């Protein structure tokens, strides 16, 4: 406990606190700007930590990285352009809230749920480090495979109106994930003679294309503001406060999604791109009004905000304790350990426990700072949703173009974005669900790699592992229960109408 408090004092001391705030400030803008990911910025900022002490270095880098996910939600809510790939699911209910003139409330909700999620994740990092080793080490290819299947089972929840259409959209996502060099044999698949496609299709142009392009087109088409409230600018502190209170009204959902995000962050290879969708689908499955998701339900915003920020603490655990990076950003952070003369692993839990705990405090304080900064700017940011759509369109086009381009620094990224954008427009026109495509793209590669590994390692014996059976049962439950519940409520409604 002494070390825990001493590390807090170390973080708030000069110049560490200034470096942390500077990092969080950079992270705020990196998060807001589409295309500038947290991992890329970590890499860009790495040279600056050579001369820093370990605690100051991690305060700077983690302060920057940890707030990116939260700030990425801002553009998702306001313009349907995800600031980060981990913020795509926020669009589903956050953007409809903006269209209803409730941007302030959506921002308040996402800020508060993100803060709670981040804090829970950070403190969980501190609490479970000593006992987490067996859990992380017990996860092998079969568990990753069934976790991917569990994630895919949520396609059912994300296909609110038509199960068939949702599965077909997931099929397109699988096709995208199959494009590129085959992970087993190195044979190029579906590359159409294009060298660019050998690397596979990056998620960034796909996410930007499927969500942002149709919304910008709609904006240019209507010429109206994003908020369709007849010109009434309802940008208010009351709205922000209402959103913040929503996080407490749905506190149990926020806590559940935080734990879910932390758990998924803990598992190398899953990451925030998966956590957001699973949390969203979980919120929808457990809601009394699942059919209203996608129309501006605040629970949809809360669940994603909590999960993707809680995952930051979770993903640090394997990185710090075992030197296993949970994702690209954590892999870069591992480099920072070496730069400042530390070795990730058991040493971080003994000799350098103060540095480990300082990471917890950095996440806690950096998020608090980012929330305050967003609150300062929230009225101006939310006011953008009341601007004439045609004035906003050129700026948004620049953002989506830069966002897509930075995936591989190739014009082909823009071509992919446009092609997927066209698909998004068609889907929007005919009311086909778009989230299953992104979910399948993220999970398809994980599922394929681990399916083959599991089979090669133990034939079909991997199906007998207890953890695999438990996760598979949850996946089956997640697939079967929602349609059954929907069928039951339809029958009940039919019975009621007949009785009347």
């Amino acid at each position, binding site marked *: 406990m002494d070390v825990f408090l001493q590390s807090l004092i170390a973080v708030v001391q000069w110049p560490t606190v200034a470096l942390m705030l500077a990092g969080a400030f950079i992270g705020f803008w990196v998060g807001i700007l589409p295309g500038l990911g947290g991992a890329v910025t970590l890499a860009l900022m790495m040279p600056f930590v050579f001369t820093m002490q370990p605690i100051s270095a991690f305060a700077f880098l983690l302060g920057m990285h940890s707030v990116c996910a939260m700030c990425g939600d801002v553009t998702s809510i306001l313009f349907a352009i995800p600031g980060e790939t981990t913020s795509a699911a926020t669009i589903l209910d956050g953007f409809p809230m903006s269209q209803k003139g409730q941007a302030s409330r959506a921002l308040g909700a996402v800020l508060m749920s993100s803060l709670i999620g981040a804090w829970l994740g950070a403190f969980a990092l501190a609490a479970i480090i000593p006992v987490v080793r067996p859990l992380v080490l017990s996860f092998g290819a079969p568990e990753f495979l069934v976790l991917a299947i569990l994630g895919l089972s949520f396609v059912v929840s994300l296909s609110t109106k038509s199960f*068939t*259409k949702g599965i*077909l959209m997931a099929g397109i996502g699988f*096709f995208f994930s199959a494009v590129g060099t085959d992970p087993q044999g190195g044979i190029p698949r579906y590359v159409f003679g294009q060298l660019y496609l050998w690397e596979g299709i990056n998620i960034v142009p796909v996410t930007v294309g499927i969500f942002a392009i149709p919304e910008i087109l709609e904006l*240019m088409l209507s010429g109206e503001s994003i908020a369709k409230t007849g010109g009434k600018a309802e940008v208010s502190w009351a709205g922000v406060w209402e959103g913040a209170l929503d996080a407490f009204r749905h506190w149990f959902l926020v806590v559940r999604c935080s734990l879910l995000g932390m758990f998924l962050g803990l598992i190398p290879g899953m990451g925030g791109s998966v956590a957001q969708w699973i949390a969203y689908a979980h919120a929808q499955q457990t809601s009394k009004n699942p059919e209203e998701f996608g129309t501006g339900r605040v629970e949809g915003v809360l669940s994603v905000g909590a999960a993707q920020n809680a995952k930051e603490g979770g993903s640090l655990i394997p990185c710090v304790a075992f030197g296993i990076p949970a994702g690209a950003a954590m892999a870069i952070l591992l480099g920072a350990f070496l730069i400042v003369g530390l070795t990730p692993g058991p040493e971080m839990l003994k000799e350098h426990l103060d540095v480990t705990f300082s990471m917890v405090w950095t996440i806690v304080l950096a998020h608090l700072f980012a929330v305050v900064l967003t609150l300062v700017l929230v009225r101006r940011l939310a006011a953008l949703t009341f601007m004439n759509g*045609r004035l906003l369109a050129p700026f948004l086009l620049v953002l989506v173009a830069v966002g897509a381009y930075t995936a591989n620094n190739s014009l082909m990224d823009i071509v992919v974005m446009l092609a997927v954008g066209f698909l998004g427009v068609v889907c929007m026109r*005919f009311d*086909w669900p778009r989230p299953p495509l992104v979910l399948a793209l993220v999970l398809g590669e994980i599922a394929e790699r681990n399916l083959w590994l599991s089979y090669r390692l133990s034939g079909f014996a991997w199906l007998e592992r207890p953890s695999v059976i438990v996760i598979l049962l949850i996946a089956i439950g997640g697939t079967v229960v929602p349609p059954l519940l929907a069928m039951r409520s339809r029958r009940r409604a039919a019975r009621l109408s007949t009785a009347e």
Partner: protein
Amino acid sequence: MSSRSVWKPHPQAFLSAALLLLFVYMIIEGWGWPDKTKLFPMFVAFPMSALAALQLIRDLTRRVALEAVAAQPPSTAELAGDGAAAEVDKKASRDEGGLANAGFSKIAVIVAQMLAYFVGIWVLGFVEVIPVFTTFYLRFAAKEPWWRAILQAALIWAFTWGLFVQTLHLPFTSGVVVDLIKSLIAVQ
């Protein structure tokens, strides 16, 4: 109440057909690959082809109650014949929520404007296209006064240039026109 219905294929049938073609292509293209390479694509493509075929049949064989057909307002495409398409489309998009109900002609114009920007990136370059597109778009599509169009174009250009080029040094590709000029100068 009459239960008469008419055959009216759903317009989304073309999307279902495109998906069916995509999944059939996945099977044909991957058929000759080694087992470990084609395992996943085949695992996906076979059931998806069946589902896409099912969806296509459902879309093509759709029957709509006669009352529902009669109650539908005339489509913008039908009205386009009388020369008032633009006005009708404008009204439709404003009154009924934009993309889902807008007429083809209006969508085509907006898509062309959007494509002009992206083609401009290829022709002129990432940063160079911004002032050109923004000025012309705001002046002629958004009907803003010249001064506002130029001012906003300058602001967006300054933001992009200052942040992405000067600060972050993003390696933007130059446009083909710029490349051509450079090569001509080099030759001379």
